[in-house]
């Protein structure tokens, strides 16, 4: 009986966590652009999921945890997609998921947020941080931003592909994450 009485209290404590909403995959996008001999090549990940808590009035309390299905990678040609799944690149057989978990969200004012967190790709975790913008749009909170990462830091493109003279080290990951706006 004692436990039962505590239940409302537990629920109350859990309430902020309950606002964590699954992102709207249909309205979200994860694209990336890399450069090979200065030729911009754009790809994307078609399958990803995650939970995001974000109250634009209180962004500091926000949290994001996004998991990306590496096998859902899309590139301009089927040949490139096949290559990207190989061990030298994403090694999707061994590392089927990449993950971003936020550690802090700070308001920069004017709808801008500095989002920091841990990005794990191919078994390697790195602290990353980038400015994002957030706005409300038809019942959704949309967070957008570009996160520049070093592909070599994650061993993406090993062997011959490690040569940055052909494929540049910096890859721009473009996030557009839409979550149902709270309340």
């Amino acid at each position, binding site marked *: 009986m004692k436990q039962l009485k505590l239940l409302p209290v537990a629920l109350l404590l859990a309430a902020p966590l309950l606002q964590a909403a699954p992102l709207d995959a249909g309205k979200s996008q994860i694209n990336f652009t890399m450069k*090979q*001999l*200065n*030729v*911009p*090549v*754009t790809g994307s990940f078609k399958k990803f999921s995650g939970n995001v808590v974000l109250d634009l009035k209180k962004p500091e309390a926000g949290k994001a945890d996004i998991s990306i299905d590496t096998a859902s990678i899309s590139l*301009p*040609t*089927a*040949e*490139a997609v096949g*290559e990207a799944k190989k061990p030298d690149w994403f090694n999707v057989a061994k590392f089927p998921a990449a993950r971003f978990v936020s550690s802090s969200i700070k308001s920069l004012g004017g709808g801008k947020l500095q989002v920091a967190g841990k990005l794990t790709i191919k078994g390697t975790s790195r602290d990353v941080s980038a400015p994002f913008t957030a706005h409300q749009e038809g019942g959704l909170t949309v967070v957008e931003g570009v996160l520049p990462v070093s592909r070599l830091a994650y061993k993406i493109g090993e062997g*011959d*592909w490690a*040569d940055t*003279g*052909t*494929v540049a080290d910096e890859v721009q990951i473009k996030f557009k994450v839409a979550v149902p706006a709270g309340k």
Partner: protein
Amino acid sequence: MKSSERYSAPAIALHWLIAGLIIATFIWGLVVSGMPLSPAKFKYIAWHKWAGISVLALVVVRLLVRVLKRPPELPAHMGPMERLLAHGGHLALYVLMFAVPLTGWLMSSAYGFPVVLFKLVQLPDLVAQDEQLAATLKTVHEALNWIMAACVAGHVLAAVKHHVIDKDGMLFRMSLRQPRQ
């Protein structure tokens, strides 16, 4: 042979420069298209594109030169059919010198691998990304290349035929060195 029977110096220089580039780019394209994906392939495809776009730019200049400095008259001994064939052949070569690089540029756009000339200048995409369209354009690009190869072979054979069989000094019209009077 009078100098008026020769092509102008810029036309001659452009002819040989473009001829060399076309042959090299053609062979290079054949080699690269058979390669498996690798950093080297990325590099070689980029070179192929740079060479192709260079041909396109040079052909524009060459066409201007042709308009400003008319080519010498065809030899008097040629009959109407021969003349028709000669003009038709040259017209086909000019059309192909535009069409081959343009279809290459188009397929690059359609594939989503834009052309960045000499790593410096990104050319605008001519069509939106579309893998199916890209595959079609690739087929067209390849077909046009083989048609061009046939036209170039015909062009060379015709020039040699004029020079050796008709003995009309045809090759001197386009030779890099002025023949002795």
